[in-house]
């Protein structure tokens, strides 16, 4: 999380009509707050998370609290008040609007097959939520495509692997491209889908990994492309995943141009 968290009052002081909560997650228990009311809530275009929980005071509920999940296919239109004049009955905290991930994020996740000498690089997911102060659009377009470009990765111990973890929450298709520019070393590329578990830190306890493609060995100057589709259940595996885990086996720290594009469209 960027600290301090983005202030919801700043856009009001500046006369903007929306507030954007745009920050990398810090941990699985992140909760962000808005101290101002909104007329609509939607996922931002650059969100890695696909589901965010909006929690607010609701006197109609036995607990006094209600929540709604917003996603790239479903926003939430209607006035939700930030009640700084009262408190949540359970926690006695001010009745502000709360945002929290509705998906599991585990920064300590250790990929399957991870051994001593391996290294792990995790791309921290970004939460992007837009709170409207004026009438919100009833239809919100899907998220923007997410593109990752890499040239080098952190090198593991000799003959060990580098694991790259990229957020895949709710993404329905993807294109993976790899080029091995190591003149002497063959690199084995494996792509797995990861379903995280709330009790899986550290290690793979409760989490689930599945190979999506047959591993390929990239010779010197060799390249490979993979196309992922969530609804594909024939030769390769589809599915909706929390993370894509890409293992570069026998990677020696040389240039490995990698391009990954993830999309909400199938």
């Amino acid at each position, binding site marked *: 999380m960027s600290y301090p968290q983005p202030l919801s009052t700043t856009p*009001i002081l500046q006369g903007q009509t929306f507030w954007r909560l745009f920050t990398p997650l810090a941990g699985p228990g992140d909760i962000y707050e808005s*101290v*101002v*009311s909104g007329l609509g809530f939607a996922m931002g275009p650059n969100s890695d998370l696909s589901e965010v929980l909006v929690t607010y005071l609701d006197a109609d509920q036995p607990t006094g609290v209600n929540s709604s999940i917003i996603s790239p296919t479903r926003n939430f239109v209607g006035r939700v*008040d930030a009640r*700084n*004049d009262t408190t949540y009955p359970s926690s006695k905290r001010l009745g502000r609007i709360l945002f929290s991930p509705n998906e599991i994020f585990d920064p300590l996740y250790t990929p399957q097959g991870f051994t001593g000498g391996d290294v792990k690089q995790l791309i921290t997911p970004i939460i992007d939520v837009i709170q409207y*102060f*004026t009438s919100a659009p009833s239809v919100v377009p899907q998220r923007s495509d997410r593109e990752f470009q890499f040239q080098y990765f952190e090198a593991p111990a000799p003959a060990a692997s580098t694991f790259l973890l990229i957020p895949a929450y709710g993404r329905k298709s993807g294109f993976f491209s790899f080029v091995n520019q190591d003149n002497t070393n063959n690199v084995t590329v494996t792509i797995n889908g990861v379903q995280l578990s709330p009790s899986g830190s550290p290690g793979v306890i409760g989490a689930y990994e599945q190979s999506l493609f047959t591993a390929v060995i990239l010779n010197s100057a060799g390249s490979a492309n993979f196309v992922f589709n969530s609804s594909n259940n024939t030769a390769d595996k589809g599915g909706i995943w929390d993370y894509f885990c890409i293992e570069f086996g026998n990677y020696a720290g040389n240039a490995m141009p990698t391009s990954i594009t993830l999309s909400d469209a199938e």
Partner: protein
Amino acid sequence: MAGKTPSKLPPAVADYRGSKTGQPLGVLGDRSIATAPAPAPTQGDLRSNYYTYLTKTPVSGQQSTEVLYNGDRAWVKLTLTLETAGPVAVGQQSAITPVLSGKGILLETGTPMVFTIGKGTRLYIAATALNRVKVAIEPLPWLEQIAATLNSLVSSLAALLPSGSTP
């Protein structure tokens, strides 16, 4: 005294009364002519005023009611437009909280609401969070004159009535 013209006050003289710097504060009028000061509203009372009001965020769960307009000196037409989500309540009584209680009326986002504020009354505002409110204050001096005339008329009529009866 024959052949002498009667003494006459100069038509205008510098006015040093109350001056602390030795410089004249103004010019006195022709003191040879009897005049009476005409009642005139101050410029500040007749000037329109447009600004953005930011509602206060209640601190530590407390309600906060503020005076948005104090109509001590003139009638005004007050137009309020809520730019944000609210909820913002306004009313002429100070007890308009809790904001959602209905003791005041809620402003609607993007919809101007016009209030006629009489002389000697106030408009209060309260919110549960920070909000932007566009405020346009336009004085209505003619309304004040009409009100004074009506008041005078009523008084005159009341004076014509037999004592003990009510108009």
